[in-house]
């Protein structure tokens, strides 16, 4: 735990049967990583404060509901189950729900090939849509090509909050937020203006952290990377 100050109280817990000792304040996800146990994430990035919204990282800790390991702090004596058939099933269901609103083509997958949602879909072997297709038809969330640098595909946005934290908490540019509510919620720039007309300075941090095809680099998007 390099980022944690030394001299902090250590606590111990087990993750998938392994005993782990970590400084107080460590999250379950961080502790698991220390122990070499990989818990999948979508909204979380180790560079940011966790928000726990995608719920892909859920683990069993013997409570009424599962806990999001990216935000949940370790507690003394905790017994964490990071993997089981049930947990896999929930992660697969969450992925399938997001995929049902995903556009046919992801600008990230097409260019740099590192779309994290599509990677999860492959991991869980999801090949067809289980739910009504939310990306087809006229009610789609649309695209925004107004920025000279960044391509916005609202339909590919999974509201992971990464770009928002990058723009507001890391860069302090204070441009991106969420507007709307519920299923109508979406990312917005300033007072919900097109990105190119907003106070965006095109620093590129948002597209660097975006896990999907929602925010991508215009000069790269459109180029096809050919894997040989």
């Amino acid at each position, binding site marked *: 735990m390099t980022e944690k100050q030394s001299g902090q109280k250590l606590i111990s817990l087990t993750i998938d049967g392994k005993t782990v000792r970590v400084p107080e304040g460590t999250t379950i996800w961080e502790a698991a990583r220390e122990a070499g146990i990989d818990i999948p994430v979508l909204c979380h990035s180790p560079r940011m404060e966790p928000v726990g*919204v995608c719920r892909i990282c859920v683990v069993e800790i013997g409570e009424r509901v599962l806990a999001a390991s990216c935000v949940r702090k370790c507690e003394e004596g905790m017994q964490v189950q990071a993997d089981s058939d049930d947990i896999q*099933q*929930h992660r697969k*269901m969450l992925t399938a729900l997001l995929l049902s609103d995903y556009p046919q083509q992801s600008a990230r997958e097409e260019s740099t090939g590192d779309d994290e949602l599509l990677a999860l879909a492959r991991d869980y072997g999801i090949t067809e849509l289980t739910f009504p297709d939310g990306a087809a038809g006229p009610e789609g969330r649309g695209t925004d090509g107004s920025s000279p640098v960044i391509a916005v595909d609202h339909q590919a946005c999974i509201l992971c909050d990464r770009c928002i934290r990058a723009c*507001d908490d890391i860069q302090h540019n204070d441009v991106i937020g969420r507007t709307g509510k*519920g*299923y*109508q919620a979406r990312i*917005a*720039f300033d007072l919900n203006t097109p990105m190119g007309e907003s106070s965006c300075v095109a620093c590129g941090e948002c597209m660097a952290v975006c896990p999907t095809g929602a925010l991508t680099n215009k000069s790269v998007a459109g180029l096809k990377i050919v894997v040989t």
Partner: protein
Amino acid sequence: MELLNKMMELQEADGSVSDAALHKLSKETGTPLYRLEGLRGFYPVFRAHPAPKTHVRVCRDISCAMRGGNSFCRDVASALSGVADVEVEEASCLGRCDTAPAATVNEIPVSGSVEEIRAYAQGETPLPPDEPKAAPAKWPTDPYEDAAHHYGTLKSLLSAGEEKKQEVVETLKASGLRGMGGAGFPTGMKWDFTAKARGEPKYVVCNADESEPGTFKDRLILEELPHLMIEAMVIAGWIIGAAEGVIYLRHEYGKERKALTHAIDQARATGALGVSVFGADFAFELRVFISPGGYILGEETAMLEALEDKRGEPRNKPPFPTNAGLWGKPTLINNVETFAAVPVILSRGAQWWEAQGAGDCKGLKFLAVSGDVEQPGVYCVPMGTTINELLERCGGVPEGKALAAFAPGGASSNFLPAAKGDVALDFQALQDAGSMLGSGAVIYVADGRDLVELASNVVRFFRNESCGKCVPCRVGSAKAVDMLETALAGNPQQNLIPLLQEMGDTLAKTSICGLGQVALAPVLSVIENFSEAAAARLGGSNGGRKP
């Protein structure tokens, strides 16, 4: 509170919160534009463009749909279509299910047929008076003979002094009082935790955001017994060491707000609020915060976010509000009815309270009754009264019909069959029966109703009111509504029932808050308890029509 209050003032003054107004507010307060947009886009009271002169809101939720029919909102809209300067909007439960179908015209509650509502909207019928009752009824949880004796419990506690504090907590624990807002957490324990929590200052918050379909019991307490709630908040402040209290009130409760504000003024005049409560070395002030709207704000951590001028999205827990609540400080949050029960318990004792219950159950319970009953309304009954007994008190099912089903604890509680009508209205008994006491709202359903349609109405409510923060609830509730609507239109997709069950499981286990966790529960309870009716509408236990 400051920022949202400013935005609500703008909305009130201009009929909208325009881009220009937000640019100005951003400069004045140093708030980034994205945050202001986040608030404007989240809270339903804010409009980017002004409303027309007459604004009609019609409730679309379960109790009103049962009385007015599924097309009620559309019928009101078409009766007023083409009328200049009138707008008709579908609204979530307005908390007036006793007068279903409920609507408001420029925020004034009305009810009646499509024709009657049209006449109100066009000014042909004058709007009803919007004043609280002048002479409220005498309720059994009010220990006071008359207004002159109000706040007597607080006064005698303060004069008895410090050593009474632990006794108050012990009395509440012994009384068995549990949270009446939905979760049923033991109240004495919550007061104890907050009293012992470290951090300054501490806060007392009253949850008066009551918005779950079928639920309107807090509305009655706010109108008729506000002094009990205020007194308990001051006592709570004294016990936990807080000097400030906030009442979070839903904005649709207009006349209740008047009654509440009047009671607060009276409390101040009596000496029950202020820099030295009844002359003691203890200061306590109360303020009312009007919610900018949305059922999710009733979830206690979403409420705290709203009080901190943020989008009302529930927090990941722990930490819990008792340790880290408003502005990260220890905060005691109780429901209106929970607070209002405290004075009578402290003045008459835990044993008196216990003895008010039926059988092994403890205390008194306010219940909002709606749906297929002769006399919908709020009833204060012994905890443990059965569903059938309550139905009898409410005059039974109209037109001599038989009871088919009931939801005992608001829209989020599971539907149970009439055969379970002898179940006691009590936390444990209802949980054992496969449902819950929840928000204290009993919805009776007569024979001949389409239960799948009613349950789908409730799922739609949760979809509409989801905050959108977490994936399972935001996307899951929307997909479930799509699939249910297709099924109700006669084309259930294949394997719909098992798919709904699987989704329901994921929503229950992975959603951040109680909304997503129960969003599919009503429809799953119909699938479980009324399997034939469910199969007829949703396509059999293996689902769907053969391809």
